[in-house]
């Protein structure tokens, strides 16, 4: 996965803002696909849509960092359908070092991606999880039922950054 440092900073800035009641913020990145040698898939997030404050729901389960309304998911689905771009659910765990998807993330992300795949089967969808200085991603490539971890996430700018490297 490759994205510009400007886009990465805008995502970090948004996700770092406190919410009135949600423990963490959520957003969606929209990404295009590229192909390289040896069947390597390249995923290029090109735009970020924060989930507006009013689309967060007070979660009944205290273990959930953020619950968002179906409206925000529908908007993301509509965009993938309109543009052909993939949708990546993005959130951040407020610590340094390599983050890990929680059990709730691992349970909910496939359900969300299924919706995105219905809306735009030709794109790569998934989830991107940031920490303060690292990131990992799970990606469902077109036509694939199972995800693969992003081999690495390149932040392209000054300086270059490489996250999630195996």
């Amino acid at each position: 996965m490759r994205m510009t440092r400007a886009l990465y900073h805008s995502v970090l800035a948004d996700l770092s803002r406190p919410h009135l009641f949600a423990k963490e913020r959520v957003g969606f990145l929209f990404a295009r696909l590229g192909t390289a040698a040896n069947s390597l898939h390249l995923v290029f997030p090109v735009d970020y849509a924060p989930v507006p404050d009013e689309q967060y729901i007070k979660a009944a389960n205290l273990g959930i960092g953020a619950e968002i309304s179906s409206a925000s998911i529908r908007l993301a689905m509509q965009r993938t359908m309109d543009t052909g771009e993939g949708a990546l659910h993005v959130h951040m765990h407020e610590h340094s070092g390599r983050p890990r998807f929680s059990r709730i993330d691992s349970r909910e992300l496939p359900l969300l991606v299924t919706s995105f795949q219905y809306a735009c089967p030709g794109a790569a969808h998934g989830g991107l999880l940031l920490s303060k200085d690292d990131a990992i991603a799970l990606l469902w490539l077109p036509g694939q039922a199972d995800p693969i971890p992003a081999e690495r996430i390149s932040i392209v700018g000054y300086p270059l950054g490489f996250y999630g490297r195996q």
Partner: protein
Amino acid sequence: MSVDRYSRQSFLGKHAEALIRTCVVGAVGLGGGGSHITQQMAHIGFLHYILYDSDVVEEPNLNRHVGATKADATDNTPKIEVARRMILGLQLEASIEAYQSRWQDHPYSLRGCDVIFGCVDGLAERRELEACARRYLIPYIDIGIDVHQVGTEPPVMAGQVILSMPGGPCLTCLGLLTEDELSKETARYGSAGPRPQVVWANGVLASTAVGVAVDLLTDWTRGLRQSVYLCYYGNQAILQPHIRLEYLGTEVCPHYPPGQVGDPLFKAL
């Protein structure tokens, strides 16, 4: 890997060696400039190379082609093989994907690079290479040199090192590529002989380009935060930032809009 080998570049940072070892570097053109670059990258510790050059070594290359020998000129050794030999001589475990062709014939490999060096002749070649780098979000470092002579004045040697960063100003924004010059280029390339090149000027530009790449990767200076456009004035042995950098606006490059990345995407109307 020997610790001692890199002890004198440990100031690059504690993660520098790992970053350098895993970075995939592309070099298009392995002649006067590219041969310096591959040699230096191998010395520094880079292990992953994607290389392109369709040419073989000939006698006129020996005035500047680092690593090429008299025997290579006699045997017409492909330039990619000279580069491979030089890299493997320093890095036994290097992975080298080398094509004796134009990069356009094997573009998929280039897309996997983390940084691309362009050491190509001509403006049209630069434009194509930069367009590929932009589309696949890869920093592109361009070097070039030319020699002009007007009337009875001494020849003037000039060159450039440019870092074209996705999202930032491109070679067109920076004024290196103009439609006028592109249309004229096939008719001329300097006037001091066919494609004039000398080893010392190539060395200055290639070394500077490698320095830019290492800084970009390791952030050791913590100072590289904007476009690089360095002009080389060979007659005076001066390398300095181009004045155009002072007048760049903050607007996004109009030639490569942010959304135009990845494979072309077709949608039914």
